[in-house]
């Protein structure tokens, strides 16, 4: 989970009207706690996860944690 491929995006925060920035974010699943670079709104901290990431890397990590 260390690499995050898309570091820029056209998506922006609708509430804050801010462009998203890549920042370290805490994620967790089962026994696993990680820090990963993800896109988020610099103001309200809402984190963006695209379909590719959710069904790619994230799913892969979920599965491997489940089998640990």
């Amino acid at each position, binding site marked *: 989970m260390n690499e995050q491929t898309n570091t820029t995006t056209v*998506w*922006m925060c*609708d*509430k804050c009207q801010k462009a998203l920035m890549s920042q370290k974010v805490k994620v967790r699943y089962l026994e696993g706690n990680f820090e990963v670079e993800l896109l988020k709104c610099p103001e309200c901290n809402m*984190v963006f*996860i695209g*379909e590719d990431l959710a069904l790619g890397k994230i799913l892969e990590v979920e*599965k491997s944690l489940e089998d*640990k």
Partner: protein
Amino acid sequence: MDLDKLLDISNQCIHSEPPTCVASCPVHMDVIAFVSEIEKGDFAKAYKVMENKIPFSRLIGKICDHPCERVCVRENCGGSIRISELEKSVIDLGYMPPKKPLLMPKTKGTVAVIGGGLSGCVTAVELDKKGYKVTIYEKTDRLGGSLWAHEGLEASLIEEELSTIEKKGISVVYTTEVTEQTLQTYLQQYDALYLGTSEWSKHYTIHPQTLQVDDSALFVGGKLQTQNPSVIFSASSGKRAAVSIDRYITKTSMSASREREGVFETKLEFKTDNVTPVESVEKTSAYYAENEAIQEAKRCLKCQCTECIKACVHMQRFNITPDSYIRSINHNERIVLGTRSANLMINSCTECGLCKEVCPIGIGMKEIIHATRQSMVERKKMPLSAHDFALKDMQFSNSDAFSLIRKQPSKEASKNLFYYPVIAFSAYARGLYKGSSKTGYLFYPGCQLSSTHTEYIGDIYKHLVGAIKNKDADNDVGLYLGCCGAPADWAGRLDLMPESIEKIHKTWQEMDEPTFILACSSCAATFEKYLPMIKTISLWEVFDTYGLPEVDIKKGKRELCIHDACATRHNSKLHQSVRHIVKTLGYTIQELEYSKEKAKCCGYGGLVSNANPEQAEDFVKDRIEESEHDVLVYCAMCKDALVKGSKRAYHLLDIIYGNEVNQDEPQKMPTLSERQNNRKRLKYKLLKEIWNEEESDMSPSYNFTLHLCDEIVALMEKRFILLSDVEKVVEHSLTHKERFFNPQTSDYLARLRVQNVTFWVKYEEQGSDITVKDVYSHRMEVVED
């Protein structure tokens, strides 16, 4: 879980048992590998297979007296495989000179071999390989003994092969006769002694397994020991003596795991009932020509027990049989750190029980898999995502949204029906009129039938009241909507069973122990397992006994094949009732090869469609390929699975209620969301129509309208996302403005965590119209701070 007991079962599996030919070959040449290479035309590899087990294979292969052929199971189907002829031809076509031997230091000990005949040469070579310094004492001036007397061997070949012995560094002392008198001196001189002469002056008692004489350093083999002229028995005894001598000198157990040396009895009983006889290939010259050998090799049946894997697409997908399956489970269970790589496999068994039915020794994976899943749950090692959706759906069924228990409407409450002509024409009204307020029967349709065949439930209930009360006025018929707990059982979640089971049990006691009428085969299995005190009867037996609903039946004329529900495999009464009903309705039945006790699973069992959808598809595909005909089922899940596999399938209720119509229209099954909605609707409808109770609609209302195209609906199904999840995400994003915006496409993307899943919805907003463009989810939790 008792893993050692499990491994015992794995050892009983005869999948890896050798065929009779191999067991009867004193040196266990791997006949199946051998003929398989020939079949591929790879004679060099075939020779390697021979060489692997047969010492001096280039010689013995030409003169072996082939005891293997006498027991070949092909014998009565065209004649035994001509293994020895194949060996001759393989030597001819595939022999390759051995690589120059590496001369290794011989430091393990010294051995004298008395007699340079075949068995002596074999022992010498085997011991040399193991690192012993070997000396052969031969009374004549050449090695080979009786080999020279064989007509099938050219002298030059014998010479060439035996010359390798001295090249390896084995010493040969020629023209030296050893006698009983001088033997003792040799015994002093060497660590061990092998006696392989064809005759000897003294009679020794030889241990049949180790070939040892008493506890001494003397070992006897060859014809002295075998007492028969067979070359292959002689060679085998030479090999075995070498093993014994090695164990003797290294002081390891003389007898441990040697039961299967030499000829033994295999546990494999290969059935040839369905084998087409094929005559053996006649050779047209001295040896089989390449092509003839290939043809002969093809006749070999490659005898092996594969009954279970032939019947089960789960084992096929993972290319595994119970012996290795159990070893993987054992490994998976014992692992402390690292990946439990068998998890997916363990969650891909439908727990259908077919393997046990087809196994000649009755090994079944169902109970083993079930115990394994329970153990995984107990140790908190069960992958959460495997069964999460199904368990939440079960929770829904047992919530107020669906769960319902009612006695038959009382006579008092039904007064308004008891007037002419209703009472004359409606058996249901007459049934209510006879109300005894003692619930003798409780109709339990189950959650799946209610989800997918919602419209029938009310009619069935009314019919049951009419038909049962007509013959049995004492007993009222009540109704119970809920989920029996089968999903929790399949998931190994014993902790969740009481939720269903205890409620059912309590209700049963409070209602004075009514008989449950079950419409779902999985409910029946669950009741049998967890509620054995409750008397149950299948809806189909009730129909068969008390009569079918009187609907305007256009008698069917078609042929349907019956797909029995795997959970009913041992319920022959039920199978009979179903067939009787189908025939009464005018259909003819085609019985599938795998039916009744050998029914194959539709792929829903064991929650496989949740844990491994691709595996579930295998089951469907395998099942529907069995027949061209449309399929008749009597389990709601079977119908769902088969229809999803694009097979025309009818539920028994479809033909009972005359709905086997519109045969050109594609069949469709309700989506996961529709199923929940149907259950809610059913409860609402039955309460209103039968018990006159009005419930307020509990579904939330939103002030937006969702638009979902077919592709999105399909995506939601595939990703196990419910409409209610999508609604929650959109609602949350609209009220809190928590969403992302894409200025290029003007789409919004919003997320919401519902319990343990984060759902994402991409949509377009136009006024109150929300058009969904994408949905996905993940379980990983993002900490937003």
